[in-house]
């Protein structure tokens, strides 16, 4: 795309789509958009930077090709809708974009889009193709996470003191970029990102964050962009270390790796999302023995778990000896443990014993 290097605003980039079509038409050429390939084959692990990066492979999407014509048309339509958002200074959801661009093509019974499955990937294509973050495109996801701790934010001009929000905390919006969300003050010593809401609630209730002076974040499973981006900003702007607390299973490991190096799916955003210095604090496969968790609170690994764990062993970012030992230990035991299993010992075992000891012993994996 001609305007790829242009670092001007997003609207200009979107208008560039139309320019490309007009220019090609004048030269009697097939209008074409170049889009980086978004798949495992086009992903590389940059060991130096410690993040997953998108490769150089691109694919051409041209109009006068039967297989691509519809997608090309859809791309221009989505581009148009995104430009409309920019001009009106609105944000919206993926689904609303789908409805906005859906109509029946004149003189036919064909719809521009038949389901949201068709429009979602095109938005991702444009994010990558135009080198614009989804937030910059004004497309938001559902608010998917919560934060609590000694942190003061400014959201749309409102001051949000995250230490004065009771047990509920502040719901992290999907767009946390500077003009929308400003970090006013943060006096914490570290950030703790928890996989599950249950443990986050426990720590909020026990005022764990007050005692240990930290920012508590959860993404309820795989953390959404907003949570990841806020964590990254706090890490970067306030130089805070980040600890990740997840279940002891292959999916927990992967959540950690996504926070650390970025995901395969969103590899193009690793630059702004990944936190290579994030540390894995637990639950480690060594913990059951070290903390005396009985075998009967473990869960047998199923076939899917085993397959996934073996896949993880082959990822270059899990190649270090510590990680190979960690994962293989889980496979050898044949068991996985949920964070909730700590309640077997005591309801407050997590906040009173487990985490304090972990932090004190510096018992984590890099």
């Amino acid at each position: 795309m001609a305007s790829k290097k242009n670092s001007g605003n997003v609207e200009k980039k979107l208008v560039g789509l139309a320019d490309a079509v007009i220019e090609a038409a004048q030269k009697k050429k097939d209008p074409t958009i170049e889009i980086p390939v978004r798949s495992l084959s086009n992903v590389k692990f940059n060991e130096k930077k410690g993040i997953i990066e998108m490769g150089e492979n691109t694919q051409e999407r041209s109009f006068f090709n039967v297989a691509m014509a519809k997608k090309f048309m859809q791309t221009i339509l989505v581009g148009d809708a995104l430009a409309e958002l920019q001009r009106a200074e609105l944000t919206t959801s993926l689904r609303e974009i789908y409805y906005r661009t859906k109509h029946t093509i004149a003189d036919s019974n064909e719809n521009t889009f038949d389901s949201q499955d068709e429009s979602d990937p095109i938005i991702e294509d444009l994010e990558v193709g135009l080198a614009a973050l989804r937030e910059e495109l004004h497309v938001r996801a559902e608010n998917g996470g919560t934060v609590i701790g000694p942190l003061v934010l400014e959201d749309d001009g409102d001051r949000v003191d995250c230490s004065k929000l009771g047990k509920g905390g502040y719901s992290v919006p999907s767009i946390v970029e500077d003009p929308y969300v400003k970090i006013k003050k943060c006096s914490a010593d570290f950030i703790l990102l928890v996989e599950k809401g249950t443990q986050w609630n426990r720590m909020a209730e026990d005022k764990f964050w007050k005692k240990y002076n930290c920012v508590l974040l959860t993404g309820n499973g795989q953390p959404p962009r907003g949570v990841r981006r806020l964590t990254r900003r706090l890490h970067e702007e306030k130089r805070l270390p980040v600890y990740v607390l997840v279940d002891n299973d292959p999916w927990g490991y992967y959540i950690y790796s996504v926070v650390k190096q970025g995901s395969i799916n969103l590899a193009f955003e690793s630059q702004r999302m990944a936190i290579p210095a994030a540390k894995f604090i637990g639950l480690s496969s060594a913990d059951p023995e070290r903390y005396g968790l009985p075998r009967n609170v473990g869960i047998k690994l199923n076939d899917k778990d085993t397959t996934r764990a073996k896949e993880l062993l082959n990822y270059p970012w899990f190649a270090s000896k510590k990680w190979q030992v960690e994962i293989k230990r889980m496979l050898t035991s044949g068991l996985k443990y949920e964070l909730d299993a700590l309640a077997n010992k005591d309801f407050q075992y997590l906040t009173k014993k487990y985490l304090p000891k972990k932090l004190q012993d510096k018992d984590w994996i890099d």
Partner: protein
Amino acid sequence: MTKTKADQTKPATKGGRPERASPKAGLTADEMGLQQREISVSEFFTKNRHLLGFDNPRKALLTTVKEAVDNAMDACEEAGILPEIVVKVEPIGEGPTPPAASLATRFRVTVIDYGPGIVRQQVPRIFAKLLYGSKFHRLRMSRGQQGIGISAAGMYGQLTTGKPVKIISRTSDKTPAHYFEVQIDTKKNEPIVLEKKEIEWENHRGTQVTIELEGRYQKGRASVDEYLELTSIANPHAKITYVAPEGEPKVYERTINELPEPPRAIKPHPHGIELGMLLKMLQDTKSHWLSGFLVSDFSRVSTALADQICKTAGLSPRMRPRAVSGQAAEALHKAIQATKIMAPPTNCLSPIGEKAILSGLYKQIKGSFYTAATRPPDVYRGNPFVIEAGLAYGLDPEQARQAAQPQAPRAEGESDGSDDNELTRVIRFANRVPLLYQQSACAVFKAVLETNWKNYGVSQSRGAPPAGPMVIFVHMASVWVPFTSESKEAIADYDEIRKEIMLALRECGRRLGIYLKRRERAALEHRRRNIFELYIDEVVAACKRLKDGKVSEEKLKNQLLEIAKKRTGGEKTDELLDQKSGPEGLPNSIIVTEEGVEGEVAAVAPSKPAPSPVEQPQQTGAAEPQEEEKQKIKPKKTRSSKKMKAVSKRRKPAHKKPGKRGKK
């Protein structure tokens, strides 16, 4: 039928025996002897009318029409006359005005043919004596087989309404017409002539039979209407006028002006003979030597072959046939089965022919693709037979246009409605007679289920006929069609027969597959061009919005259209598309496109004003629009016939290629 009579008498004798021990309860042999008497076949059928297709009033009406039409067609063809038949079904009520057809319980069926007529002496026996006819004792292909049909219909009428069968017959314009009213003496199975006179008749030649009976008229599956429609498909050389109980008379025009090759009678083939039959033939023969008997009483047995059979059986060729019995007969039977004998002659068969099937299907069924295949003759139980199959597939251009019309905008999850699960219709024929009942018991239907239609691009669920807008036609021609019952509704499932049906279906399916692939390719090309045109407007409009209106919409659109045209090869592609869709390489097929018809289509015969005994004041009115339609179609046909010539030239070498045929 004689067998049935025997069956009926035997149980009576057997039943008496164990009772003898207790004289009080039972009868003496003498007493029983008094009760034992011959049962007339007519009496037997009075009680067992379901065996002949008179189970219920609706079926009775159909069977009556069917028997009369079959007889008329057989008579015309045997006399070398192109059949022209008028069928009239009138509801009859108590009062002067007839009731509505759907409510009536009594009908008058009149069938008129312009055939050879019947000699005066034979009329009563043909119409009022069961098991009387010309067809049972010969091995030759014909619609009727046993000589029961029309007299049974007459008897049913007589039984339910008390009215006699009325016949008018005339053998030539030099002789007078004769009018008969006959009834059957159900005890003696003999005709009773109630009235007999010479009358004036406007027809020069032919037969008219009128039967009044209890019945019900209902349209739809297995109706008189369907029967006549199907008859017209399998007999495109016949013209049938149907005066239905309601609505306009319908004329099924003749599309082929040649009679089918007249079938010849043959002698039985040795491999089809059972031991009992062989014994009977040995007794009845006029030959003096065994070898002579084999040569003269069977087909395909030469003197040398007869000697070989005798040798295998360990019998002297000079033995007297009558002396061959017991073990010797059994040895002879075994020897015959063990000897390789040429397949029976097939000139006793008269298949409809691919051209005629195509023409019949094309005339009656709307579609975009037609094909037909006639198999070479084969033999089951020594009876030669030929299987023919045909296909009509798809929507005709008019229906297709309607289906392609944009409907209401589609919501999420709604399909475009093209994949409705209509099942294929299977139409079955035996010796040109449509079979309307017991589809699932029929070898034809089983073969359709067993064929893997998915191979040919048609969807099919397990254990079901294929899905889609398709009609499958199967015809079995044989000197003796093995029906599963006397009412001739389903063909028995012999391995040889089913195998042949499947081979014929596969041949048709293969051609359909080629056609569908070709059409898909053409559609893809078509879509290629359309797609760009369709999307250009969208892209142009979006670009204009993106540029905030600062774009010359017209200019951009034209530029893009030009690129699209260049990309898809412009007019050259159009020509290419047209050529590709032709029936080249598809023998005996017709393809109907919006531009016209490709392939060989028999023209509708010019209908000559036939002398009609039925007063049809409306008929002239009904015939006219049809004439107009023909005119409209004609220019298309002339165009296609030009193409057709070119095609048929190309087609011949393609036909001979061994590879093409072998690929199955």
